[in-house]
């Protein structure tokens, strides 16, 4: 079995098991802790809509904080939108998803994807530089932050190397790319990357708690 077949087969398979099991483990482990019951008289009824509202509104910065957080926010936007486009709008990736979802959706031209991918890498590097130089971030960062950065950027870089090639063989870089995704999937549920699904829980919770009080969300 060559490296690509190993990456696309058993490696990806095991990564998928770990990804699914780990994600569910984490969510269930949190959700099944004791629930906080609130008997206070609500000012407003706040259910799912409040949760959805905040899930949406927290994607944008409230005006008082705009100036102070402009730089990291812009970088984070570029990083995240780039990642989104690269993962979900690159045609070969869509084909990958179609392989097990059974349906596909329109993608973007590869040239645009490469551009977005590069932008995402550049933004990620800028964010890392910020993390390594800002006194606040230096203090609060831990292994998870750096390792998660690494496993996120690695597939981007290896993916972008496929069209560039640099003397390497297509199937070898592709195999390394798939293996980097395997690493990402394995780490995903356990570290801070879990925010990709926890963001709905945290924002939603805050939305319901504070909307209930009629307070600013």
């Amino acid at each position, binding site marked *: *079995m*060559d490296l*690509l*077949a190993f990456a*696309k*087969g058993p490696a*990806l*398979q095991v990564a*998928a*098991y*770990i990804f*699914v*099991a*780990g*994600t*569910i*483990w*984490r*969510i*269930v*482990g*949190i*959700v*099944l*802790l*004791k629930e906080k019951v609130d008997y206070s008289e609500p000012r407003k009824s706040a259910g799912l809509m409040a949760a959805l509202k905040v899930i949406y509104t927290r994607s944008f910065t409230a005006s008082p904080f705009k100036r102070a957080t402009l730089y990291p926010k812009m970088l984070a936007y570029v990083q995240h939108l780039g990642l989104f486009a690269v993962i979900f709008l690159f*045609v*070969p*990736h869509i*084909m*990958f998803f*179609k*392989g*097990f979802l059974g349906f596909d959706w329109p*993608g*973007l*031209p*590869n*040239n*645009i994807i490469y551009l977005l991918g590069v932008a995402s890498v550049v933004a990620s590097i800028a964010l890392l530089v910020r993390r390594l130089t800002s006194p606040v971030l230096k203090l609060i960062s831990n292994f998870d932050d750096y390792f998660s950065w690494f496993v996120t950027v690695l597939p981007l870089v290896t993916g972008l190397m496929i069209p560039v090639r640099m003397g390497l*063989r*297509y*199937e070898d870089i*592709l195999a390394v790319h798939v293996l980097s995704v395997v690493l990402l999937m394995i780490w995903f549920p356990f570290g801070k990357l879990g925010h990709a699904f926890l963001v709905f829980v945290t924002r939603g919770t805050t939305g319901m708690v504070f909307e209930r009080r009629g307070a600013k969300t």
Partner: protein
Amino acid sequence: MKKRPTVGEILQAKGVSRRGFLKYCATTASILALPPAMIPRIAEAIENARRPSVIWLSFQECTGCTESLTRSASPTVEGLIFDAISLDYHHTLQAAAGDQAEAARHAAMEENDGQYLVLVDGSIPLGNPGFSTIAGISNVDMLKETVAGAAAVVAIGSCAAFGGIPGADPNPTGAVSVMDLVTDKPVINVPGCPPIPMVMTAVLTQFLTFGQLPELDKHGRPLAFYGQTIHDRCYRRPFYEQGKFAETFDDEGARAGWCLYKLGCKGPTTYNACATAKWNSGTSFPIEAGHPCLGCSEPNFWDGGGFYEPLSTGRFDSGAKLAGAAGIGVALGVAAAAAGRSKQAKFTKEG
């Protein structure tokens, strides 16, 4: 050992003019994928090259490779090359049969000991020697015997190079490739199902012209022909970058000649010269004809996923196992939460 005539002498004897010879050299350079600037060197080399002896062994194969080669046999330029080699044994093409044929093989081996080329098509069964025999000799024995005194071995076609269809899962005959058995001689793989005729002749021409083996890639294939992917040399490549794909075989995109990636094209991971050398005397090649590349010149292409399955498709087991993983996730989550809660209960009691 009698002295074989040089190629120059053979051509002269056939009454080929110098202009004809120059034309022949230009075509040879083209076949060898060498730049036209190399033509004078080729001319010099060919004039002085001596006619080598070739023994062709056919094992578990479909004769497709021989068919492919003979497509371009008769008095063509490539044909001339075959005039220039001495094909001393080929049980499909030769007139002799039985003991006579075997005697010819042994004679050629003795006469050219250490200098002849062995060409093999088909894979070799190790499961049971009786699965494939020639003149009562098992394939593996014949290969070992013949290769012993050879200068080099050329594995023609994907079966000889990588095991091919006989070697595909579940490999009932225990088929292996030439490479698997011959480890003490140079082995050149010329895979493809079948290989491009010009590529086969080119490898022989290279040996004939320069008396040396070509530079090989990690799968033992001559880099001159297997150095670039179909994808990299494909005229439809710009459509790939622009995101223009044929979705089905009869949609607008297919008619407009867009990229066949979504229809399972293995071009990106397939190393071969189809996109430039083309087939049927340079008429076309599968992608130009509207069909995705199957990746036939790659190891294990038969087991490498469906022909119409896009390259990026992951190879997953059934969803049941994934559901199992989800179940384990639920169990671990419940256990973790229960452990957390019991710790809280304990701490509450302890105060």
